């Protein structure tokens, strides 16, 4: 079972991101369970959502306390809550920022972690670019696909097209594709480095 | 039902099993109370009864109910002083119902449409002599005829009608109206013998083979009083003046006429004098207007027509072209006392209107009679002390009006009928009077009395045209519908409507209602909300 935890703020599509992740996994024939942290969600407030992916039925209903992967949709949260709590050794971390881990004060953390499991992505900018709104969730999801290889970009695109239609779907797909390519490229570059 | 939830879901209307009548401590009962108008009517008319039909526009039926008691509605509708209206409960609400005017409308309608009385009941084989064709005699003849008796009227005068013809001026009662109603009575088969004065009643009965007689000769002898007078002064009595109005030669009263008296006759004569061309018609009366026996409306009409009245005055002396009157003053008991002050009035003639006496000569020698104050005493059944001879009208002690006379005729006829059958007439039980407090007047809309059109004042002063007009159909209907139907159900459905327990059964048009005592809880709403007081509460026997 693979467990993903996404941190963000109300309004950034955190819950949608886990749902889309679960849909993408479902599209690949896998079992998935996405659920929010069940707060009274308010725009701007810290939000957590979860997604489990497995090859068999998922019965577990506890919150994800030891995630295999973390997606941080808002780097400002890093200074507010312990987003890394319970992260498995060598777990994936994807952070929405155009800075490096070093630049956002996570140099120490990054140095103790396998580099192929870490990535930052300027997802908000991609959202603005393709959708016209600072929504980073779909680019991040695609970036996560690229980072982890857990799901394919086509599945993310499928999930997007199920959820959205028209211009918004197109924008999201474009943003996701660019994010996927960007992360893929960075990871390849890093592998060669 | 069994498939439906037990107890919570019920069949409709099943509460009929719960007989709430057992809750009752008092029960409502429908009653017929006596309307004050009926009670007050000297002719015993069922006024509420005939107005009920008039309300629906069924004038013929109204007329038929009316004429059960009174064969002369067109006359009565003109000359009756309508004590019914004085008694009418509506007077306490706004104004009394114009019963008299509706009666006249019905009477006129009957003449116009030539309605006839229903044919008499099967002939009884009995024969009754009626003496006098005045209101009382005509009424008795009518009732007796309808009861199946053979009736013959012997009238001393040249025309039927009595005081209706010889006492009441034309401008109050056009003669064609009187003639029509008399003729309708005669059409029942009543024989009328005119110019046939009965001089000895026993003899007349024997000669004619009559089984009973009703005497109604009226009071036609004008009372006189002593007034010192010169030869030149013309002093006549009112009855003579009015009677001569029916003849070819109208009475010559001069330009200045003084009428002495305060009754309706005094007014009639004064108004007649005015119409005959008098420039002055002065009534001299010894007391005040309040004490005057003449009806207020007649006084009022007379004054409108220019008749003058000298109150608190007596005639002391009549000279040539003038009279001397003495002023009076009321003492503490209200009696007029002479003051010693005198004045003179110009007068070409003095008409005495001081009442009338009865000519009782036809009774001379008749056994068993009691005569008192110039009138014949009769028992409650209108029979004189002489078996088989009944009397009524002005010749017996009573208020001397046409209506009373008609009432006497009806009452006498019933008693004569009973007497002829060898039984005693038992009037039905008198119902309790439907007094105003028994009514719930809320339910009647506000509707003021319809005023009958009045003849133009100039024409009234110069002609004998009828002063008061009749109601037209719309007005009559309106007026009839002002009746409160006191004490008698008029099927307004109030009891049926206001019962919270649906315990009033409506039986359908004309059939009224009945109570369903199985469910009536005795709340009394129907009693209080009955507009006309036709329901009363009576305690249950518990």
């Amino acid at each position, binding site marked *: 079972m693979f467990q993903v935890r996404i941190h963000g703020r109300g309004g950034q599509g955190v819950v949608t991101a886990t749902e889309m992740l679960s849909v993408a996994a479902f599209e690949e024939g896998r079992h998935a369970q996405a659920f929010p942290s069940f707060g009274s969600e308010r725009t701007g407030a810290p939000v957590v959502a979860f997604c489990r992916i497995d090859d068999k039925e998922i019965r577990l209903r506890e919150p994800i306390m030891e995630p295999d992967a973390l997606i941080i949709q808002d780097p400002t949260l890093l200074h507010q809550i312990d987003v890394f709590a319970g992260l498995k050794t060598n777990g994936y971390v994807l952070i929405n920022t155009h800075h490096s881990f070093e630049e956002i004060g996570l140099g120490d953390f990054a140095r103790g972690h396998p580099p192929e499991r870490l990535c930052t992505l300027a997802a908000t900018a991609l959202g603005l670019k393709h959708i016209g709104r600072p929504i980073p969730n779909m680019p991040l999801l695609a970036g996560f696909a690229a980072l982890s290889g857990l799901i394919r970009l086509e599945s993310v695109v499928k999930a997007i097209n199920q959820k959205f239609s028209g211009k918004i779907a197109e924008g999201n797909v474009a943003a996701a594709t660019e994010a996927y390519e960007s992360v893929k490229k960075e990871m390849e570059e890093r592998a060669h480095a | 039902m069994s498939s439906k939830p037990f107890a919570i879901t019920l069949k*409709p209307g099943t509460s009929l099993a719960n007989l709430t009548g057992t809750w009752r401590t008092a029960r409502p009962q429908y009653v017929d109370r006596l309307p004050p108008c009926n009670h007050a009517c000297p002719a015993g008319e069922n006024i509420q009864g005939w107005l009920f039909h008039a309300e629906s526009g069924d004038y013929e039926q109204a007329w038929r109910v009316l004429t059960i008691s009174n064969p002369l509605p067109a006359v009565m509708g003109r000359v009756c002083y309508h004590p019914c209206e004085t008694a009418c409960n509506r007077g306490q609400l706004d104004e009394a119902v114009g019963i008299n005017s509706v009666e006249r409308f019905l009477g006129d309608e009957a003449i116009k449409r030539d309605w006839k009385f229903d044919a008499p009941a099967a002939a009884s084989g009995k024969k009754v002599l009626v003496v006098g064709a005045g209101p009382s005699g005509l009424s008795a003849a009518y009732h007796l005829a309808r009861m199946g008796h053979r009736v013959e009227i012997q009238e001393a005068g040249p025309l039927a009608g009595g005081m209706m013809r010889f006492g009441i001026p034309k401008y109050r009662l056009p003669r064609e109206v009187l003639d029509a109603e008399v003729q309708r009575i005669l059409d029942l088969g009543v024989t009328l013998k005119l110019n046939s004065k009965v001089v000895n009643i026993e003899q007349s009965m024997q000669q004619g083979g009559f089984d009973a007689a009703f005497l109604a000769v009226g009071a036609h002898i004008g009372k006189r009083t002593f007034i010192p007078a010169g030869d030149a002064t013309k002093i006549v009595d009112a009855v003579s003046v009015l009677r001569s109005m029916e003849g070819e030669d109208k009475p010559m009263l001069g330009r200045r006429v003084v009428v002495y008296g305060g009754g309706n006759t005094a007014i009639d004569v004064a108004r007649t004098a005015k119409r005959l061309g008098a420039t002055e018609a002065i009534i001299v009366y010894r007391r005040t207007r309040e004490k005057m026996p003449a009806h207020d409306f007649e006084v009022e009409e007379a004054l409108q027509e220019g008749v003058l009245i000298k109150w608190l005055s007596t005639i002391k002396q009549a000279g040539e072209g003038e009279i001397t009157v003495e002023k009076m003053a009321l003492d503490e008991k209200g009696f007029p006392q002479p003051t010693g002050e005198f004045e003179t009035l110009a007068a070409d003639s003095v008409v005495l209107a001081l009442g009338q006496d009865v000519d009782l000569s036809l009774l001379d020698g008749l056994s068993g009679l009691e005569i008192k104050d110039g009138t014949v005493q009769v028992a409650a059944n209108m029979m004189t002390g002489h078996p088989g001879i009944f009397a009524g009208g002005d010749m017996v002690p009573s208020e001397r009006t046409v209506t009373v006379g008609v009432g006497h005729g009806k009452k006498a006829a019933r008693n004569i009928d009973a007497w002829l059958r060898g039984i005693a007439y038992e009037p039905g039980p008198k119902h309790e009077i439907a007094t105003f407090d028994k009514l719930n007047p809320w339910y009647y809309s506000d509707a003021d009395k319809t005023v009958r059109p009045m003849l133009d004042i100039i024409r009234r002063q110069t002609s004998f045209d009828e002063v008061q007009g009749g109601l037209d159909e719309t007005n009559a209907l309106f007026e009839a519908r002002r009746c409160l139907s006191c004490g008698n159900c008029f099927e307004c459905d109030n009891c049926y409507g206001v019962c919270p327990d649906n315990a009033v059964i409506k039986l359908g048009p004309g059939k009224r209602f009945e109570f369903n005592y199985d469910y009536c809880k005795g709340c009394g709403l129907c009693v209080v909300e009955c507009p006309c007081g036709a329901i009363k509460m009576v305690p249950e026997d518990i």
Partner: protein
Amino acid sequence: MPYQPVKFYQTGTFTVGNRLLAPDERSVQSSRMRSNSINSGHRACQGCGEALGARYAIDAAMAASDGQLIAVNATGCLEVFSTPYPESSWQVPWIHSLFGNAPAVATGVAAAMKVKGRQEVRVVAQGGDGGTTDIGFGCLSGMFERNDDVLYICYDNEAYMNTGVQRSSATPPAARTATTMPVGPEPGNVFGQGKNVPEIAMAHGIPYVATATVADLRDLEYKVRKAMSMHGARYIQIFVPCPLGFGTASHDTIRIARLARETGMFPVFEAEHGEVTGVLKIRHKVAVEEYLQPQKRFAHLFGKHPHPETVARLQAIADRNIRKYGLLEKESD
């Protein structure tokens, strides 16, 4: 056009029936064919205004809907006296659920009829003043706001009579109830701000709002008929005196209702879409004393230690109603 009293026939102009009217002008209550929606054998007190008002109103609604009517009833006297197991007095399909939910239940019935394509079936909800102006008020307002196709009829007897005469928000000032006893310096119910539910109903802008009394049957029937001719949320508040709660003789129920109207204490009017379109004028204006004195619930205002100043305040309320609704005929009329 507001209600026009029959004028041409003076005898019985204001009575239930009238033998001279054309059949189509006759009142429902005068008909032998009236539905008697609430049947004999119910257990209402003698002279119950509510039992009477309910039959008046529901029969009229039955006539107007050609018998296609479903009635919903709030808890209260009407419900209790009409349906004690095993007997029901109702001859119409009828449901009672709770004290405070009749408007909502009626909404449900109307929704069911709509969804089943049976829009000829009309829905009436009914309750007392407690069930309407107090506990059922939320549901009532919701039903109004959604403009659900329900005619709600409030039988207003100005207190919780079913439970033993306790104060409701419809209880008039100074009235004695079991919870506003005539003791202390200001005996009886408080002079509050009032809760004029017909006006609150009007504020919802619903198609029709009217008040009526059991003393004015033809007006009442006219209003029910008019309400039934419309769709959407409609409200009629009918003044129904309660002999027990008012402390009046059982035979005085209608008289008291009449006096409530004639004094101006209970203004009778109608409104469409929030605007008053007609008032039933006072015929013979009387002082409030005439209305108050026959009622034991106001007895403490009179007698040995009278409260004329309180009577004057009540008169002021009546006068305000008269002014506000124009209850008097103009002098020139």
